[in-house]
């Protein structure tokens, strides 16, 4: 059925995020790049926990048929990793706000040149 499309999405997200961090000059784009890598790794962690034809691990929704449940542990790890993403994002954005207040520009090249 949908053979390995989630893994392709994971690799695409991570590479786009990495491209944004390395080659983009605007600070906000770098922050967006980190968030993209974050969501790529989260997607990878979630796709590891799926069994074909499985149901969410909630016992009330388990119909009488002997079908199997998706793995609960990757979902718990992804919950933690999402909240870590929120924390890192909040910190980075507040630093970007302060860099803009000090230097008046968001361009990485200018920020480094203004420093000297």
């Amino acid at each position, binding site marked *: 059925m949908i053979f390995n499309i989630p893994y392709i999405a994971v690799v695409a997200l991570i590479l786009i995020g990495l491209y944004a961090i390395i080659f983009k000059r605007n600070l906000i784009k770098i922050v967006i790049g980190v968030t993209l*890598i*974050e969501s790529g*790794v989260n997607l990878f*962690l979630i796709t*590891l926990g799926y069994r074909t034809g499985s149901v969410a691990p909630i016992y009330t929704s388990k119909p009488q048929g002997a079908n199997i449940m998706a*793995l609960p542990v990757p979902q718990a790890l992804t919950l933690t990793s999402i909240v870590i993403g929120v924390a*890192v994002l909040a910190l980075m954005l507040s630093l970007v706000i302060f860099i803009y207040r000090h230097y008046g520009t968001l361009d990485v090249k200018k920020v480094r040149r203004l420093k000297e």
Partner: protein
Amino acid sequence: MNIPEYTPALVVAIPLLGAFLTPLVGRVNDKLRNIFVILILAINAMLVALLSYDVLVNGIQTYIFGAKDLSYPIVRILFEVDAMSVFMAIIGSIVLLVAVIYSWAFMKENTGLDKYYTLILLLTAGMLGMMLTGDMFNFFVFLEITSISSCALIAFRTDSAESIEAAFKYIVVSAIGALFVLFAIALLYGQYDALNIAALSNAIQYTFLDKIALVLLIAALGMKSGIAPMHMWLPDSYGKAPATISLVLVSATLASLYGALRVIFTLYGNVLSTISNSGIPLNVSIGWLIIALAVVSIIIGVIMALIQSDFKRLIAYGAVAEIGYMFLAIGTGIAALGTQYGETALTGGIFHIMNDAMDVGLLFLVAGAIYYSTKESSLNKMGGFARNMKYTTILFIIGFLAVSGIPPMNGFASKLLIYESTFMLNPILAIIAILGSILLLAIFVKVFYSAFMGPEIPRFKNVKEVPKSMLFAMGIIACIIIFFGLFPELVITNIVEPAKNALMGYSGYVSQIVGGGI
């Protein structure tokens, strides 16, 4: 005496509880909060001492969260404390205690001290959690706590633009590094459906995915511990942060170094000596890779330190060179895994972790003392401090002798072991190491003359000595340095040797959990 078996949990839970309480205590009054924080860290240091006595006497201690006995397959998180993690925890707790005592007077006139002490306690909990945990994902969570709180502490002086920029660079690098660690954990989890270090080490069969996970882990943890090609963030963040934060950052970086050691020796322990298809065993290739990076970071650290004009950036580059020495010793230890000099290299490397934390820490505190009394941090504007800052000068002499490995100080004991063992592996490495030490000595002598001797500068005529509490904090570290320097045998036999054996003997670590240990 019987030590309660929940000590490992308390070592991490007490600083966490303290961190959550500090904002409330801080609303009462400031002095009470400072006493509260120092009390928490003193209790923590005592707990770590109890734990280390317990581990050194009766071997590995494990503690499972949420259940009395271990259920198979391992579902719960557990702490596994062996001699190596206790060795690192000792360093962490001493350095943090000294940093808080020092920052009582050093930080008096800054605002936002409530959050400053909360973040220091959170960083302690994160760092100690990284050192004691036996679960890979738990290691990632504590790695993230350490990097977020140290990034916020770097950006403490929000009025200086450089420290904000250094904090941004630090958080971007640590966020990417932590995500690589998480990706590697996901790779291992996807294959073996286990998150416990001992269970994973037992299950790893060195497939191609495990090689990718190993490379990602070493790259990310090496980046976090400031090894050569990825050390750009280190001089900025050490240089621009307040002095106590640089000291705290040194021990936070060493926690990532411990993580790299734990990954290489325990997680990939039984696969380390497999012969890969290209005929070179895994440990030789990893060992030589680490040695190459270490030599590059020694050279970069020493050369960049020569041309620095800012005092703290110079010490930061010195710290990069010192991290190069540690990785040099560890790389030799890995490359020569079975031989006798491989073990002496590892002993020297582990001992050097302790010594470096103390020496570089003392130098940062001296730089902080100078900044405290003269508000000056660039070397060309300094001069003639020896006249009226006598104690700081003596402490600076102790510090830089120790960093460059001169006999009476502790740096010499560990660097001698490193020279001796790297010489057996390949003489050129030992020559580079010795040259690096000599250059470091030359740099710091130059700093000593430009900052402390030199003509009287009218601007600094009425410079007065730093307050007693700061001198007391620096005194503690100086005494440790001299004590380790005069009695290295005593320290090596009953702290460093067990740590090295614990690291090398990964089978004991694994069988404690998987082989029906409890």
